[in-house]
């Protein structure tokens, strides 16, 4: 027969014991230990040893034992003696006077296992949900960090979602896009591109790729590649599309620029080579092939040293590489060799090309064939050298001619009674072309002044010829002054017809009835400065001597009185130029120059004239010899 305790424990799963003040258990129910899977101890059983779940609740236990509390419960204790058991642990007030409490263990295994199943299912769902949330957040973060606009729609072209790039592309908020149809937000053409309408079958739900131009949120036209994929539904059938846009506007613009640049390089009149960092040629343009005669197969992958002529030493190439490897541009001329062995010169610039990280990846060489220019320069240099030598010879000849002329020609003026004679002569550097003589002739003077056209050795030689003929003519001359110039003209023309001279031949008689008879052969007219200060030109210039044979020259006679001054001069005076290349005779009347220069004596007057000339010329060096002859009748 079963006891009441056994019936309770079997029917209701209730086990109990009493607890005394020493916290020892009185185990009236032998099945409690069996239920807990514990062995019966030899001595008293301490409640905390059998129920460690009560550790920490000692004060609560004491309160029950003392009758201060009706009891408490530790619910759903789980143990695994052989299999999982769950129980609620109760401590009730029992006999407070004795300090005894009743401990009841109620088996709740069935409830606990059921609760665990429910909780397990709930927790599994929560875990799965959390995983989904995390995955969705990951996908959203991934999409939002993508620079490409991304969108997805249902089969009816309604936006289900998009990333921030897409919202920015359309210039709208994400919330203003989701739930709207494509056609509501885009033009019909753009909508077709977004959904792939007309391009793919209905089964593919618009999946595919195309390139279209669409307007962005700012109304700007963008070139876009649409990559559209099928968005699968729960049953695997297409439930919409997901589209990724690649904005290739900048790339297309860059491609156009590169195409233009490529065309420019291909059509360039200069040879262009691109090498890799090691110097291997990766590109050559057609001009390079034309100039060198190499084929693309012979150049691509090879080093430009196939062009090496041997004209430059290792130091030359070392300097070139040091320059470009240090990131600088090398400029210079290189003599290279064509495939057929011909040498040619090139003006070369070699520039390094760096990648985004600053590393040199390529070199580009632009080369211009300067062989013809180089040859021309060589010819010019040779010619210049030749001219320099010839010039040196000429200068030596000039020096010799000048010395000879100085020895041969006597510029001294005689002292003659009845005349005061003075001369001012400023020759240019080198050999002058002015010549004169003043000689006694009876009681008077014979005067000749001339100016040879040109300078240099030939002019000097011509001057000696003029001197020779004028000296010889003077010895036999008795006729009028014009006759002197006519004979001189014929002599010079018959001997040196390509040279000519201007000159005045005159005879000056002294005294109260002084006379100046003269003939002018294209020379500046004499200036007569009267005793009273008036100044005038005498006669006309007439024709140049030596231009043609049979020339006639008029003889002019002018009466003078003591105190009158007569001036003969070469064109160095009327043609003196200032810093602005303007001639004095164009700026002022030469007679005024003489009138302003009149001083007490002949010499002072002539010095004043010379100062006027020099003052007008300023810093400009003289363009011609200056010769001024002065006569004063005494």
């Amino acid at each position, binding site marked *: 027969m079963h006891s009441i305790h056994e019936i309770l424990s079997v029917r209701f799963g209730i086990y109990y014991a009493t607890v005394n003040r020493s916290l020892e258990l009185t185990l009236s129910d032998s099945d409690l230990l069996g239920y807990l899977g514990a062995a019966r101890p030899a001595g008293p059983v301490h409640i905390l040893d059998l129920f460690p779940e009560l*550790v*920490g609740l000692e004060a609560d236990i004491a309160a029950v034992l003392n009758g201060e509390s009706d009891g408490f419960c530790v619910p759903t204790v789980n143990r695994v003696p052989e299999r999982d058991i769950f129980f609620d642990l109760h401590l009730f007030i029992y006999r407070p006077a004795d300090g005894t409490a009743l401990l009841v263990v109620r088996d709740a295994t069935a409830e606990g296992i059921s609760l665990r199943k429910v909780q397990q299912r709930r927790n599994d769902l929560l875990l799965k949900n959390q995983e989904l949330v995390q995955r969705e957040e990951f996908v959203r973060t991934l999409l939002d960090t993508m620079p490409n606009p991304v969108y997805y729609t249902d089969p009816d072209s309604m936006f289900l979602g998009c990333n921030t790039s897409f919202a920015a592309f359309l210039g709208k908020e994400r919330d203003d896009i989701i739930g709207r149809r494509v056609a509501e937000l885009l033009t019909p053409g753009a909508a077709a591109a977004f959904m792939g309408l007309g391009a793919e079958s209905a089964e593919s739900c618009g999946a595919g790729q195309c390139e279209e131009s669409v307007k962005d949120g700012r109304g700007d036209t963008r070139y876009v590649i649409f990559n559209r994929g099928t968005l699968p539904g729960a049953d695997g059938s297409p439930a919409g599309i997901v589209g990724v846009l690649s904005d290739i506007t900048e790339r297309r613009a860059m491609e156009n620029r590169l195409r233009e640049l490529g065309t420019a390089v291909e059509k360039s009149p200069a040879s262009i080579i691109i090498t890799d960092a090691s110097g291997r040629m990766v590109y050559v343009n057609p001009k390079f092939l034309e100039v060198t005669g190499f084929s693309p197969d012979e150049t691509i992958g090879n080093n430009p040293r196939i062009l090496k002529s041997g004209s430059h030493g290792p130091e030359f190439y070392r300097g070139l590489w040091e320059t470009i490897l240090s990131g600088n541009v090398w400029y210079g001329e290189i003599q290279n060799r064509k495939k057929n062995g011909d040498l040619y010169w090139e003006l070369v610039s070699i520039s390094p090309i760096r990648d985004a990280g600053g590393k040199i990846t390529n070199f580009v060489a632009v080369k211009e064939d300067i062989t013809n220019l180089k040859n021309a320069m060589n010819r010019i240099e040779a010619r210049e050298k030749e001219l320099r030598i010839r010039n040196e010879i000429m200068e030596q000849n000039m020096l010799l001619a000048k010395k000879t002329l100085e020895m041969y020609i006597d510029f001294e003026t005689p002292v003659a009674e009845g005349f005061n004679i003075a001369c001012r002569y400023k020759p240019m550097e080198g050999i002058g072309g002015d010549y004169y003589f003043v000689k006694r002739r009876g009681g008077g003077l014979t005067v000749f002044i001339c100016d040879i056209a040109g300078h240099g050795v030939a002019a000097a030689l011509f001057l000696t010829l003029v001197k020779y003929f004028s000296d010889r003519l003077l010895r036999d001359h008795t006729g009028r002054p014009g006759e002197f110039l006519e004979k001189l003209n014929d002599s010079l023309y018959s001997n040196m017809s390509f040279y000519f001279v201007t000159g005045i031949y005159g005879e000056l008689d002294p005294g109260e009835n002084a006379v100046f008879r003269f003939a002018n052969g294209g020379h500046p007219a004499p200036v007569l400065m009267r005793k009273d200060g008036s100044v005038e030109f005498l006669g006309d210039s007439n024709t140049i001597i030596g231009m043609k044979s049979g020339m006639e020259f008029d003889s002019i006679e002018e009466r003078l009185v003591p105190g009158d001054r007569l001036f003969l001069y070469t064109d160095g005076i009327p043609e003196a130029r200032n810093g602005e290349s303007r001639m004095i005779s164009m700026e002022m009347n030469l007679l005024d120059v003489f009138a302003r220069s009149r001083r007490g004596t002949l010499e002072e007057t002539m010095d004043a004239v010379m100062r006027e000339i020099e003052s007008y010329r300023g810093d400009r060096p003289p363009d011609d010899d200056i010769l001024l002859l002065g006569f004063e009748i005494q």
Partner: protein
Amino acid sequence: MTASTEKYKIVMLGDFAVGKTSMVKRYVYDLFDELYLTTIGVKVSKKEMAMEAPAGTRNVTLLLWDIGGLVDVRNLTAQYLQGASAAVVVADLTRLGTITQIEAHIREFLAVNPRGIVTIAFNKVDRFSESEFPGKLDKFMETYGARYGAASFRTSAKTGENVEALFTHIAGKLGSPAGNAQHT
């Protein structure tokens, strides 16, 4: 002379499925089961250990209260926490939400046991890619450690990494004068 045994109640706190039961199982039985089984109610495990201390060998018994992880920690009854000397707050490094709940668990525990010792286990470190989130774990450990003076451990119940070290640390702390010990 036989040294007395120090007995401490330690509660395992944290959201569901963070690995509380697995940590206890690893520490007490050196076992690990990949299968997740929800804990219901309270399950007390006992770990006896001998610790060398300056005054001699300490016999320490840790009573590990594995409490079913509930979503809302405020549902925990104070009864479960009552009399606990220490708490191990466990978080799952693969679920950010369990880390943000650390603070709530600590407050709950300290409300009942103001002098209790708190230790944090950032569990499932074997599934956490440090390189993927550089500095993130250090930041967590620094934040909660500084705020509650709690020691933090990177743990893995699966590999056993730092599990014993964590409980040894607690036992060491409980032996100090400030420790909340019960001697039997």
